[in-house]
């Protein structure tokens, strides 16, 4: 115990210097701005800032980069709630109930709960990292392709739970998403699939492209049809503090989300992405009245946001302890560390303890700064909403288009976003929900990749999925969840049919 205490005091002594505090603040601020601008992800910012970090001492550079990273998570939920525009894949879930709350004039509580939940999650995840980083990473390594596949399968079943309309259509949307996810080069063979000869599609369709088109653009078109003058019609939004009821409803969701996200973020295969989806499903399953979800249930914001942020923090673990970046942003940070002459891996904790613990301590500092920054900003965002819609939506379109273009410098991406906007519009008309599609899109290629890899590693032995305990557990859980969904649905359908006759 005293060991931890010593380490933490070392860490804080590093994190709390004026210089590092400054860099943490810069990082958090930049990150929030980047997160709010739809489409521009942390990747572009970090790439741009990298040269500056060459000249900074290693710890300060990492602190700033880390601040940008989770600052972006905070910022991304802002646009999801306010204008149904997910800043990145993980914020999509927040669109579901967050935007609904905004339309009811409750954007303030939604944003506040999101910020506070994220703060709690960030702090708890940091504690987890401080205490358990090495053993957690060992645990994470137990996950092989077999377990990843079963996890994805579980995630897909959970995707169906996301829907609140027709079950059959939700399942079809998941499959459609799976199909769209397969566009591009196949990992195992290199073959280009479903690209129609368009070379630019060989890396697949970007998740931001789909998310923005399906959620953001279609919503704008819809709003224009409904002739809205203001996005929020009855904007009694002076209050941004959540009510006591809100707190009571959300605190358990925050706890559950934090736990879920903390665990999923450790997985080097990028579990952080699905942590928000998983949390939403969990909350919906556990809720007394699941039909509230999708219409402004605050748990649907509190849980996923906490899960998201917890996952973002714990995804530092594979980076710091194993030197494995779980996503592109972390890869950049890895590169930054190497430029500074630090070879990341298990040795970092031992050889450069002030680096390791300094970064961890600054995560607390960063989270605190973010919540202090974001809460007052809520008032500003709300005022932004009262700009007449006819002026607001072209601005939103502009940020989206530039954002999407800046991802890969491909005009095709922007055009594709428009195509998905059209598709999203059609889906809204046909009562098909886009969220299951997006989840299928994200999980599909991962599922296939891991399935094939698992079979390759086991030399074609399919029983391996049931032989390994973690995998078996998840498959059983999927089966159970499936039954839990189908049985009540079947019963409902039977009742409807009886009522007709």
């Amino acid at each position: 115990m005293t060991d931890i205490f010593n380490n933490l005091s070392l860490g804080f002594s590093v994190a709390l210097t004026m210089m590092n505090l400054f860099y943490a603040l810069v990082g958090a601020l930049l990150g929030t701005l980047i997160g709010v601008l739809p489409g521009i992800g942390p990747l572009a910012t970090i790439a741009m800032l990298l040269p500056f970090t060459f000249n900074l001492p290693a710890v300060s550079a990492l602190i700033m980069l880390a601040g940008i990273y989770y600052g972006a998570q905070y910022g991304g939920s802002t646009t999801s709630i306010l204008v149904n525009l997910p800043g990145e894949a993980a914020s999509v879930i927040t669109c579901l109930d967050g935007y609904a709350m905004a339309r009811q004039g409750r954007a303030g509580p939604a944003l506040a709960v999101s910020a506070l939940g994220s703060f709690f999650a960030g702090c708890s995840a940091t504690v987890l990292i401080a205490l358990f980083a090495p053993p957690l990473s060992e645990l994470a390594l137990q996950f092989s392709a077999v377990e990843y596949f079963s996890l994805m399968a579980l995630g897909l079943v959970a995707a169906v739970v996301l829907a609140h309309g027709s079950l059959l259509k939700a399942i079809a949307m998941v499959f459609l998403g799976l199909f769209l996810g397969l566009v591009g080069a196949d990992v195992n063979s290199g073959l280009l699939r479903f690209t129609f000869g368009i070379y630019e599609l060989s890396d697949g369709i970007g998740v931001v492209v789909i998310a923005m088109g399906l959620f953001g653009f279609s919503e704008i078109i819809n709003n224009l049809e409904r002739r809205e003058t203001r996005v929020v019609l009855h904007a009694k939004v002076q209050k941004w503090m959540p009510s006591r009821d809100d707190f009571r409803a959300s605190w358990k969701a925050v706890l559950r989300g934090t736990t879920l996200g903390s665990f999923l973020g450790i997985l080097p295969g990028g579990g952080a992405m699905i942590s928000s989806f998983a949390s939403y499903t969990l909350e919906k399953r556990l809720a007394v009245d699941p039909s509230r979800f999708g219409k402004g249930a605050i748990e649907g914001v509190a849980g996923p946001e906490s899960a998201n942020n917890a996952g973002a923090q714990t995804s530092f673990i594979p980076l710091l302890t194993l030197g494995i970046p779980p996503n592109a942003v972390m890869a950049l940070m890895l590169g930054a560390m190497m430029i500074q002459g630090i070879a990341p891996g298990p040795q970092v904790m031992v050889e450069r303890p002030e680096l390791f613990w300094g970064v961890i301590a600054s995560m607390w500092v960063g989270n605190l700064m973010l919540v202090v920054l974001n809460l007052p900003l809520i008032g500003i965002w709300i005022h932004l909403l009262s700009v007449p819609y006819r002026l607001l939506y072209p601005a939103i379109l502009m940020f989206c288009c530039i954002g999407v273009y800046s991802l890969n410098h491909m005009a095709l991406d922007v055009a594709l976003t428009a195509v998905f906007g059209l598709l999203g519009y059609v889906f809204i008309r046909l009562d098909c929900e886009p969220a299951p599609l997006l989840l299928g899109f994200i999980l599909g290629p991962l599922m296939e990749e891991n399935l094939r890899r698992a079979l390759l590693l086991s030399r074609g032995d399919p029983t391996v999925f049931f032989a390994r305990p973690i995998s078996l557990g998840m498959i059983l859980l999927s089966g159970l969840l499936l039954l839990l969904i189908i049985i009540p649905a079947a019963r409902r359908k039977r009742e409807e049919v009886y009522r007709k006759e």
Partner: protein
Amino acid sequence: MPIKIRSPKDLYAGLLFLFFGVLAMGMARNYPMGSAVRMGPGYFPSILGGCLTVLGMAITARSLWLVGGKIKPPVMRPLLLVLGAVFAFSFLIEAQGLLMALLALIAVSSLASWEFQFREVIFLYLLLAALSVGVFFYFLGLPFKVWPI
């Protein structure tokens, strides 16, 4: 004998899924299949396509006896203008640069609003152009082509 379509929403949704399912299966046939335990690139998509086709057929069939909602007729103006604006942006951004692409985007999409006011749009364009060049080009250093030349 005329078939009564009880749920137009389901009908078109079903047909849409059917279309994608058949497309998936059709294209996947050109990729090597492999076997169930050594899957080739065509295996998974074929199965997906198959499931999607089945689901599409089920939903289409269901539309014939289960009562669902009528589809609200699409309002063409906002749809075409917003999408058109974005397409225009994507065409113009590389050839003509940010300022021109933005002009097309703002101008065309603003037309979609019934509250369109010419002077406002000009002002909005100038503001957004300045903002975007400032933030994206100067501050973030993203290498765009800004001017049409």
